[in-house]
């Protein structure tokens, strides 16, 4: 890729700019500082969300209590799509600006994305039994979400199969970027095709069609998922940084400092 002047290796570490944090060396401590806030937010939001979901939200007239799966299903489905887009974004940034950190971000996000996709599939399937009478149909949304899950797996497997990290990053980026076509398909599938799966009820343009308490619960759970995802991704990206940059000076200094007891500084 083009050796742009913005390439991380060349950005002077003095002087603040957005690219200041594009180098692993400067991002590492920042990520360390962001960790605790993420964990705390995730915990509080989950508690609030689950409380709303199970104690505040009313029982549904037609589905009874089984509909409460929605509080996990929908945030998980959302996250699985958002994370994939984020991965594709970071990969594109990495290819254009040749920044090592963006590829690391992308690899750090993938397992969590796969987890959410799996949860969405699993909860959806569980929910399908009582509502549609079957665990699975080859409906457009379900199929495309399944493909999303496999794209995550493919991305991870491909990266694992390539020894050279630079090549692994770029090959993975290709899947992430090309696979991003799938995300709008998932999102709009209910609109484009006449499917079994239900359409969007939360939208930017119209007023919500579901009970406000249900909506609040869902949003709380979604925010909790965000906080968890960011936290986990930061932990993972820090691990990847140390692994990949173990031969550089800053990691060596860090491990010396670490042996003195202070990793987050």
């Amino acid at each position: 890729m083009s050796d742009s002047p913005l390439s991380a290796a060349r950005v002077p570490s003095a002087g603040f700019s957005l690219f200041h944090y594009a180098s692993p060396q400067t991002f590492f401590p920042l990520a360390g500082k962001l960790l605790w806030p993420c964990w705390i937010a995730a915990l509080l939001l989950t508690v609030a969300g689950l409380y709303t979901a199970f104690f505040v939200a009313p029982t549904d007239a037609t589905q009874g209590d089984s509909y409460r799966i929605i509080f996990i299903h929908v945030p998980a489905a959302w996250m699985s799509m958002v994370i994939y887009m984020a991965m594709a974004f970071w990969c594109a940034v990495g290819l254009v600006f040749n920044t090592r950190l963006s590829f690391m971000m992308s690899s750090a996000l993938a397992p969590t994305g796969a987890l959410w996709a799996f949860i969405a599939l699993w909860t959806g399937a569980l929910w399908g039994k009582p509502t549609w009478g079957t665990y699975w149909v080859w409906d457009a949304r379900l199929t495309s979400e399944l493909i999303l899950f496999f794209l995550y797996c493919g991305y991870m497997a491909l990266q694992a199969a390539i020894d050279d990290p630079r090549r692994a990053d770029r090959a993975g980026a290709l899947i992430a970027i090309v696979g991003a076509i799938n995300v709008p398909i998932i999102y709009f599938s209910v609109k484009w095709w006449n499917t079994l799966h239900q359409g969007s009820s939360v939208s930017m343009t119209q007023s919500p069609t579901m009970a406000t308490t249900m909506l609040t619960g869902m949003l709380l759970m979604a925010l909790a998922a965000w906080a968890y995802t960011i936290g986990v991704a930061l932990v993972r990206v820090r691990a990847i940084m140390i692994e990949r940059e173990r031969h550089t000076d800053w990691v060596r200094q860090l491990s010396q400092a670490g042996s003195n007891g202070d990793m987050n500084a």
Partner: protein
Amino acid sequence: MTEPAVALIEARALACVRGRARLFSGLDFALAPGELMHVAGANGSGKTSLLRILCGLSEPESGEVRWRGEPARRVSDDWRDGLLYLGHRNAVKDDFTPLENLRASAAIAGETTPEDTLLRALVDIGLGARLDVPARSLSQGQRRRVALARLLADSRSALWILDEPFTALDVRAVATLAGAMSAHLARGGSIIYTTHQPVDIDALRRQTLNLDDFSC
């Protein structure tokens, strides 16, 4: 721009890493049109890796390649157009006859060389008696000659990059090839090549790059 002022190809502070090993770093050179460069170095010193970087098949760890004074990445069409690379591997298909092989390589390279130029190249390199035999039944040296015939048919590329072109060739073929290289230089073309054999090539301007000097 007058020709000699701008180097045809230039390396600036090239470094190459393979696996965990850093092969070379801080490598600089400039090659003028009509100049011959011999890349020397022990086995595994990174000659092949350097040549692949110079023709854009792989990325250097750091540093840059410049083509006619511009960053090569930015003028990549021009760069690829001016290059002819022959690697360790022959790019010869077992099931094709020598002529079919040559025709296919020309097509892939995007050249439209007339048929009789190709045929003449094969005859010149000494395959005249083997034109209808599939490459599978050719001897080692004959296969190499099929690949090298491309050089004899070429009159367009500004730079030849040749990775051990003399392997497996007998004395006569070595002389033919050395002659073709001299002719290319005389035409104003440049050559970068590696070899472990001592071979005499006529050249007005030449340089040697010993990779053992740049190893880390």
